[in-house]
């Protein structure tokens, strides 16, 4: 349990943010310069806020009113930095074990092997950081932070300096970390694809303030937040389970509370859990169950909320059996279809609209259409 309330001035910039988060992965999301890194640096004890109170698991780490400031080394907060910050003069093994010298509790036997195994870095142990790829460096950095026995793990844009391929390589490791270790994670990012894939809770930051906090799916379906969460990538998140594979057509059926979705074949076992992000711009609306249509996914629902706009496009939230779904239409279509809240509609989604970025919890390299082949 993390509780943060911080006020800190950096030049002209005022950081004035408060949030609470629990188990799982909490994403601090916002544009560059919105104060995310300063906020986690305050949590980790790397900066001393002018005013504020920070608690982890009930332990007061910073309380300016009572002049409490626990130094970084005593906070037991593992920090994975954007640039890795591996010690260049030490081997990978020495880097991994560095924090263990100081950890008060030794941890279970075999924990080191478990972490090494989980991150897939067994072959790297004798090497030095200069001989590692960017992705390998970040995996070692994650292992190093984990093995220091932290009670909270802070990750500051750990993928930002990596190319797409390396990102796809690391994301599954972070998911395993989130699911297999009982350590809460605070994850700083400005990439919505990462956040929607990883985050249990989302903290949206804007200009040094917290604009919204909540479960990721709920935050992502709030039309009013789209200017902050990103217009182009806006979309709803559904929890799904692999229900069926159709080998003849190379399709996989995903079962969600809103209905079944057929997507390009995914190399996952039946029953596997994953998250699906359905972009607002990939959703069409029909008033009747469509006939003679190539699209494979049709979810019935009702219009729950229509966003306000003067521009050509309108975002609307649908309620599909209790699940939110976001659709983006032209204002003209909204008017000509007579869409108003409460209206019964059918959401139409092309199967090919699901690319690898749309899935969380899936194996790396999930087959799917490339971003460019999506329809406009």
């Amino acid at each position, binding site marked *: 349990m993390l509780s943060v309330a911080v006020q800190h001035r950096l030049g002209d910039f005022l950081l004035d943010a408060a949030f609470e988060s629990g188990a799982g992965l909490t994403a601090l999301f916002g544009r560059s310069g919105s104060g995310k890194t300063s906020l986690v640096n305050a949590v980790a004890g790397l900066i001393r806020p002018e005013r504020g109170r920070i608690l982890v698991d009930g332990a007061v780490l910073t309380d300016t009113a009572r002049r409490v400031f626990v130094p970084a080394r005593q906070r037991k907060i593992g920090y994975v930095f954007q640039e890795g910050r591996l010690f260049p003069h030490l081997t990978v093994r020495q880097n991994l074990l560095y*924090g263990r010298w100081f950890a008060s509790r030794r941890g279970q036997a075999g924990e080191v092997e478990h972490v090494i195994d989980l991150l897939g870095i067994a072959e790297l142990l004798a090497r030095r950081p200069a001989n590692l790829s960017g992705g390998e460096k970040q995996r070692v950095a994650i292992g190093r932070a984990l093995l220091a026995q932290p009670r909270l793990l802070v990750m500051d844009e750990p993928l930002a300096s990596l190319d797409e391929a390396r990102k796809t390589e690391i994301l599954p490791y972070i998911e395993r970390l989130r699911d297999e270790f009982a350590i809460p994670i605070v994850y700083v990012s400005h990439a919505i694809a990462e956040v929607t894939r990883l985050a249990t809770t989302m903290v949206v930051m804007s200009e040094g303030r917290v604009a919204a906090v909540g479960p990721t799916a709920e935050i992502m379906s709030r039309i009013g937040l789209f200017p902050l969460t990103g217009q182009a990538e806006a979309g709803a998140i559904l929890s799904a389970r692999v229900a069926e594979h159709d080998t003849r057509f190379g399709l996989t059926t995903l079962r969600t509370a809103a209905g079944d979705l057929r997507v390009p074949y995914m190399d996952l076992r039946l029953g596997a859990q994953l998250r699906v992000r359905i972009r607002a711009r990939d959703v069409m609306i029909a008033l009747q169950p469509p006939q003679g249509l190539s699209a494979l996914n049709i979810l019935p629902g009702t219009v729950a909320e229509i966003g306000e706009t003067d521009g050509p496009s309108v975002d609307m939230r649908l309620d599909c059996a209790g699940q939110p779904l976001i659709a983006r239409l032209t204002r003209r279509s909204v008017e000509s279809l007579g869409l108003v809240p409460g209206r019964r509609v059918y959401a139409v989604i092309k199967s090919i609209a699901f690319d690898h970025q749309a899935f969380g919890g899936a194996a790396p390299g999930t087959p799917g259409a490339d971003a460019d082949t999506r329809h406009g």
Partner: protein
Amino acid sequence: MSWVLAFSPEELTAIRLSLRVAFWAMLGSLPVGIAVALLLSRGQFWGKSLLNVIVHLPLVIPPVVTGYILLLLFGRRGLIGEFLADRLGIVFAFRWTGAALACAVMGFPLLVRSIRLSLDAIDRRLEDAAGTLGANAMWIFVTITLPLILPGILAGMILSFARALGEFGATITFVSNIPGETQTLPTAIYMLIQVPGGDLAALRLTLVSIAISMLALFASEALIERATRRVQGL
């Protein structure tokens, strides 16, 4: 060519003494040099630029002046010298220890400068990272900072050693030129070329001097390269 190796006992003494003086000058000034380099690189205090100037002073003032100042401070009747002699029984004046002190002072700016430059070049975020892993300031210094500035320390030590081997002015002013006690290679050479028939001996010692210096430089280059590769993780 036999004259080359025909060292007289006095010459051998001068060679040994020179090495001893240079070695202790280098080693003795090392901890102070690291501390001062740390202060100059990281300290925020009043009088920092004054300290910087004082450290570099031996580079720019005439060595004779440095020697004379040392005599005033560390001589038998000197401000510090009297106290050290009476209370601790440490005497610098006209002893080989005094020669080492003079050499240490003359080499100090080079030592500090070299260490300070490598301290300035360190990515301090690595030290932050060590902090988040639980290391305290002392451990961070020993396990991160010190290994990373090792090439700079080695380079500084060699410079200090080389400077000490060549030191003349401050040494002869402060501790004179006493064979067996304060007569180092340069002062021995100086004395030999003053006396008739000393040319050959002077030439011998000159060659020795060049040999030692070259050896030291070669060794240092190799050491520094190895340390640098290690620090960069290559």
